[in-house]
């Protein structure tokens, strides 16, 4: 062990470790000051739609389940009671994908009408586009369903983990 910590290697380690620590300090200072990650919006949101979905005979409460990895979003739009009964992991993959930019989120995907309506007319799979803004703890935006240009406005309240969904039926 006599040679392991001679002056030369000690100097080398000091310089090497010192420069890496210095680099880390510079990078972390720069990052903390200049790099801003997106606000965390992950979680479940209860959607209040202003009007019923087209081709749906019964008004349904919907839950938007959002998974967030930075600016990248994945989500599922499900009937509120399905969401409370079913569990999140291991079930169907998220059907919506999108991005979050400056508190504005865009989500797109295909959702079967039966997944978001108790009494659907037909069994169409609809292209859904959601665009919304984050306002405090709420999402405010609109939902486009199918090829119709019809937009349905909504507000969505963030549900705390474990919070039960109020039942309208």
């Amino acid at each position, binding site marked *: *062990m006599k*040679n*392991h910590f001679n002056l030369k*290697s000690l100097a*080398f*380690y000091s310089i*090497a*470790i010192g420069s*890496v620590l210095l*680099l*880390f300090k510079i*990078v*972390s200072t*720069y*990052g*903390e000051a200049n*790099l*801003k*990650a*997106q*606000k*965390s*919006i*992950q979680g479940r949101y209860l959607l209040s739609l202003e009007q019923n979905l087209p081709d749906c005979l019964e008004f349904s409460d919907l839950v938007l389940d959002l*998974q*967030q*990895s*930075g*600016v*990248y979003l*994945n989500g599922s739009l499900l009937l509120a009671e399905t969401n409370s009964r*079913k*569990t*999140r*992991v*291991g*079930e*169907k*993959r*998220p059907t919506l*994908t999108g991005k979050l930019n400056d508190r504005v989120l865009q989500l797109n995907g295909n959702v079967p009408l039966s997944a978001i309506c108790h009494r659907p007319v037909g069994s169409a799979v609809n292209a859904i586009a959601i665009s919304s803004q984050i306002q405090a703890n709420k999402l405010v935006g609109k939902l486009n369903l199918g090829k119709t240009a019809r937009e349905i406005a909504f507000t969505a309240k963030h549900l705390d983990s474990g919070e039960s969904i109020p039942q309208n039926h």
Partner: protein
Amino acid sequence: MHAVILVLIEVPIVIALSRIVGLGCRWIKQPLVIGEILAGIMLGPSLFGLIAPDLAAALFPAETLPYLNVLSQIGLIFFMFLIGLELNPKYLSGQLDIAILTSHVSILVPFSLGTLSAIILYPLVSDGSVSFTAFALFLGAAMSITAFPVLARIITENNLQRSRLGTLALTCAAVDDVTAWCVLAVAIAVAKEGDFVKAVPTIVEAIIYIAFMLTVGRWLLRYVVKLYRRTGRLTQFLLAWIYIGVVVSALITETIGIHLIFGAFLVGAVMPKDHDLVREIAEKTEDFVLIFLLPVFFAYSGIRTQIGLLNRPELWLLCLMVLAVAIAGKYIGTYVAARVSGIDKREASALGWLMNTRGLTELIVLNIGLSLGVISPLLFTMLVIMALVTTFMTSPLLEWTYPKRLIKLDLVEPEPQPESSAEPVTGVYRILVPVANPSTQQGLLQLAATIAGERSPAAVVHPLSLIEIEEDYAFQSTPEGADRLIQERYQQLEELIQTLEPPPIRSLIHPIVRVSNDVARATTEIAALDGISLIVVGWHRPAFSNNRLGGRVGQILSLAPVDVAVYIDRGKQSLESLLVPYVGNIHDDLALVIALRLLTNYDTAFLSVLQVTQTPQAQSEFSYELRDIMQQLPQKVRDRVSLIQPKEASEPIPAVIEASARADLTIVGMSRAWGIERQTLGRYTDELAIQCQSSLLITRRHSQVSSHLDVIS
């Protein structure tokens, strides 16, 4: 269904799948850990959830996840204890100067690159709940990992533990492991507290606890060793106290604010390395942990891995960037440091690939990061892919940069040889004898030694004993455990050699012991690399198969690029009377030449050549080459060869069986005439093998027969 029942249904599925995929990986010469990680991913949303979402949701509902988490955490605690237990200061003995330099640079470079890549990744894949410092620190730590346990298995499997490269890589990985765990502990403390300053008390407490374990903990464990030595065995009472110690230590580190695994690792690491005690603890602990609990950890981790999250080309590009940073950081860091330390290019490159093995350790780190929320599910998936790729590429890249034949030349210390007689480099007649069980193969080795003969100017017999290691992390597959098995096997072979007669012949025997999981492939590789002239392999009638020359013997016959002889021992001690039935094919020529070699070696032996004809008109004359050889034989050898004819109209096989009653050893070439030729469907008929009344040697020729007759030249 009750969650406990569901968990009990899940666990067998998890264990079975991880074993099946693990076997698949073994088959393609990859570490078992790759299979286990893949099996976990397959059970999650990336495959099972994709192809059968309803079934996946029914089988792995969220309410069972906490149970799986508890099982996987217990598994992880005891696995980390085993890793600590395995971390022997012995690994730090070789080339410590180079190892410390190389391992530190191999951490500093990827750590720096990881930190820099955080500038790109943080705004994209992290959210505001994580501070940049914690994110960058964690990413740097994740990039710097080298998996000591997986690396140790790769090194053992490639028989590198005695090579310069192997010892250096092990020392580097051991230093790396300890350093990376320290960096990770700091990263966790910072992630939990938010910034460096707030994390300082946690770091100080962790240092105090490490110091406590190195002093008081070690003192207590020495007492355990004393107790063990007094009783001579590891009692359940003593083991119970050790397990309590592991769990309590894990709880202490969790309370300090680092992680459960560090406490468990520390107990293993400070445990005095009394070999017998360590082996007994490892053997008693590892089976349940490795078979039952660890696959649950892989499944739990796999369920959290969602490859589907990489659903945009830009995300795959980011994933490629992560991969490139991880590989380049480790490789460049290791390569440059090794070159500066005076290691040659090829070895430095091989070391760079070896240090890239991240495997299981990376997965442990990533799961901690995901649980703490430092890394997002997307980054977790990218880093799992990185861990898989870096582990997967190690073995092929190692073979590419540093083929086995070159590594062989770099052995740090020569393998133990029974008697170190100087062997001529060229012109050596070498017989390779695969020996599965040294206690039952005395006859086989005696025959090989007799064929080699003490009269030959340079004949060597290599009994080849291969040690199969099935488990990736089991104690016996650590370099230290494997070394012990190798030494034991050398000892057994040495005892076998001492039974050979006459005593001078024992000096011809030079055993080879290797670790290998594919006996046939290893035999043929060694045969090709070591310039073997003849493989003599023993054969026992398989109990449950009618594929007479199938299995390993069949594989050696198919693969070996040298002459092969298969020996069926009927327990005849003497080799005075030899019989060679001769039809006239090339394999018969080999049979005859081996018989002539035996005649040349032993003046009292006699050879009868039974000239069998398959049709009345045909003549089974000796080939030109063989006639030439016969003419070169000394008269005193030729006088002991007699040609005999079978009775008229007699079938070849019954004729040989009848003649074999008067012989000690019948040597036949592989031929349809004897019913011992490979048929189109890969089955063998074996009438002669079963009914022959003497011992039987079946020959399969590959090269010139004259190479076997150096004794007469």
